[in-house]
């Protein structure tokens, strides 16, 4: 049953009850019973990729249900004092196992057929909101398709799609407030789309024309818009994470009703900046929502080659950060999770980590052919049977809020708009040459002025060496 959104704490504790989540989400409750896990369970390969390593029997160390170990001995009542506080001690030598017997379960609301799972917790979504979410997910699909094709045709130099991750893109954006400051990685254009960036504005950046807010300086898909509180994309991975901690802290100091929201992929969590970002956000008690899109692949590197932990969600507790794993292909679940996390972050002034499980249906980018390192069947499966757009569509349709007529109308109009946007972007003037030299500093420095004079003279003298259209 749907649950009305009350205070965040209630939602979280009911999540805990209903889904039987272990105390990993919240501080553990010492009075809850401790289940015993057998050696078999501990050594099962349930969640390992069949192509990777074998877990040895020696991991069957004893019943260790969670990260925190418990002892039944009397010594337990006594505590030791160390910097960092009191800690109980035990005379049994017990290692915390490298992984829990059971993976952290995934929060989901809609089943694969687009039906709400009975007794799920979720924040209700109105017809208006749901339809808008669906429209935007479909728009993102069409945009990705058309821009991808434009790159194939040589009209833009590069593109990367978010195919398969439309629910994460749109539902997370829908759950935020416009004042929340977004620091993307690069596979989240849907967040910018939701906030009102137009198809023309997307096209202008991809073409690097005179209307591009980025002034043509970066590759396509490196969008940014201060008006929409969306920091400019940069290619280096994970650099945005410690910056997000700083942004969150700034918002806290300004006492704004807003948080920083930052995205990262599964691969990005291996970077040092992931550790830096989470640790700083926790220590500084900064309102930041970290959203990890675990889509299974970092270019050609499968997650089994990326880390040995149970994904990313388990890393949150290591930093003292509240975390949740969510089905990233379930728009309603993503919406509830991000909304809840955002409220927690702002009202409790703390970071929250969300691991959104999904699959990267598209290639890494137009420079990649993923059939070279993964099975075409696998891609097909996720594209057809685990499609987040179709899944949400079914739910919206079942509610009587969307029809096939709406569908074909939306797709054809959006397609037309995109083609027009591309044509218009292509026709726009190029950036004036002076923009090569502006904004390196707030004011052009002397050496840049000299270089600009020199270059202009050169271009006038040997125009055949240079592309045309860049007005001096």
């Amino acid at each position: 049953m749907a649950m009305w959104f009350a205070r965040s704490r209630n939602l979280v504790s009911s999540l805990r009850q209903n889904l039987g989540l272990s105390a990993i989400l919240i501080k553990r409750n010492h009075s809850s019973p401790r289940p015993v896990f057998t050696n078999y369970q501990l050594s099962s390969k349930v969640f390992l990729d069949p192509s990777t390593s074998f877990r040895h029997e020696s991991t069957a160390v004893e019943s260790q249900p969670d990260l925190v170990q418990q002892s039944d001995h009397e010594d337990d009542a006594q505590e030791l004092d160390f910097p960092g506080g009191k800690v109980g001690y035990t005379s049994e030598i017990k290692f915390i196992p490298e992984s829990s017997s059971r993976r952290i379960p995934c929060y989901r609301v809609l089943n694969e057929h687009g039906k709400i799972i009975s007794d799920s917790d979720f924040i209700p979504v109105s017809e208006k909101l749901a339809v808008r979410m669906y429209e935007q997910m479909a728009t993102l699909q069409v945009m990705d398709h058309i821009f991808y094709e434009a790159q194939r045709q040589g009209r833009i130099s590069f593109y990367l799609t978010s195919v398969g991750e439309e629910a994460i893109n749109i539902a997370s954006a829908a759950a935020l407030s416009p004042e929340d400051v977004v620091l993307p990685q690069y596979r989240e254009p849907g967040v910018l789309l939701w906030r009102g960036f137009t198809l023309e504005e997307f096209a202008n950046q991809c073409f690097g024309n005179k209307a591009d807010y980025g002034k043509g300086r970066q590759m396509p898909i490196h969008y940014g818009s201060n008006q929409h509180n969306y920091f400019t994309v940069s290619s280096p991975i994970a650099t945005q994470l410690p910056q997000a901690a700083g942004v969150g802290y700034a918002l806290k100091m300004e006492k704004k009703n807003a948080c920083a929201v930052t995205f990262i992929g599964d691969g990005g969590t291996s970077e040092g900046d992931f550790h830096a970002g989470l640790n700083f956000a926790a220590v500084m008690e900064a309102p930041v929502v970290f959203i990890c899109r675990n889509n299974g692949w970092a270019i050609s590197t499968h997650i089994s080659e990326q880390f040995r932990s149970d994904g990313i969600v388990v890393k949150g507790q290591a930093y003292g950060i509240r975390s949740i794993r969510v089905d990233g292909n379930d728009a309603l679940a993503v919406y509830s999770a991000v909304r809840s996390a955002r409220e927690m972050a702002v009202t409790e002034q703390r970071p929250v980590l969300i691991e959104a499980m999904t699959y990267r249906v598209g290639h890494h980018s137009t420079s990649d052919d993923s059939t070279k390192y993964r099975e075409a069947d696998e891609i097909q499966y996720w594209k057809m049977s685990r499609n987040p757009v179709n899944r949400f569509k079914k739910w919206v349709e079942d509610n009587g809020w969307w029809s096939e007529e709406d569908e074909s109308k939306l797709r054809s109009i959006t397609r037309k708009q995109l083609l027009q946007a591309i044509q218009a972007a292509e026709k726009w003037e190029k950036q004036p040459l002076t923009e090569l030299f502006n904004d390196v500093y707030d004011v052009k420095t002397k050496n840049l002025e000299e270089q600009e004079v020199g270059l202009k003279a050169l271009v006038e003298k040997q125009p055949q060496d240079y592309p045309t259209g860049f007005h001096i």
Partner: protein
Amino acid sequence: MASLLSRFCRKLALPGSAHGSRMTSSTACGSETVKSLNLYSAINQALHIALETDPRSYVFGEDVGFGGVFRCTTGLAERFGKNRVFNTPLCEQGIVGFGIGLAAMGNRAVVEIQFADYIYPAFDQIVNEAAKFRYRSGNQFNCGGLTIRAPYGAVGHGGHYHSQSPEAFFCHVPGIKVVIPRSPREAKGLLLSSIRDPNPVVFFEPKWLYRQAVEEVPEHDYMIPLSQAEIIREGSDITLVGWGAQLTVMEQACLDAEKEGISCELIDLKTLLPWDKETVEASVKKTGRLLISHEAPITGGFGAEISATILERCFLKLEAPVSRVCGLDTPFPLVFEPFYMPTKNKILDAIKSTVNY
């Protein structure tokens, strides 16, 4: 060892403070009060003023809360509160990244890297993020409020990891500024300029001078302009260019050279990026000779950039090749420090051979 101690046990007479005609480039108030301060106290004063004059400014880094390992941040946390002056986890990439985030939201973030030798984990954030933040966004965003302070340079016993001069790495990065003060009075004014400059600045402080250098420092809020070199000693036979602590050594060489009838013009570059080519060019056109000296290893050091530029601009006026007296091409050694360093006599020899070319 004894010679090392004697080098560091006496308070230094700072370049330009007593000799020759110094052209001052700061505004002098008629009624300004001055106080005798060492370098860390002058920097401390600058930080107090910075935090006082801009309520949206922050100072943070490792151990900054109790005053810092070099006492540069003494009293700040008590006065401005732990929300604005605080310790960070031991993570340079986090310190700078966090600072970029704060600055991008319109605040001034004055971050401290405990030793310049440890700045490298933050190199990605500085080069790929801070330096390009404004440019890549089409000026929609900027992190101009970011200033990164780090103690640099030889200290007599620092070895590989407490003595480095990494300025050359940063001078190769369009979008940031690199500033190095030579004395307490300069440091206060340059630091305030750096903090208030709307561009990210890397500010290297010569740690050797933290306690050794004492100077009369005006107590008021004053700024010394960036990208303006200063002729701290006028001369006619040869131009010497340097920065930071090395200027003290160079000035000693100039004094000795004068006894042998060589008139040396000594220039403090102050800002290495963007650097004041015009002042150096005008000086070399006058003297016809150039000598550059820095502690950092000679190969790929910033002296090479100055040399190449001056060669382009002053070729026909040069009487001799440009001379560079720098550190050796080795990691900064411990017991061998006196051999590694560009000493007064190495500079004096180079002055003489340049003049006698």
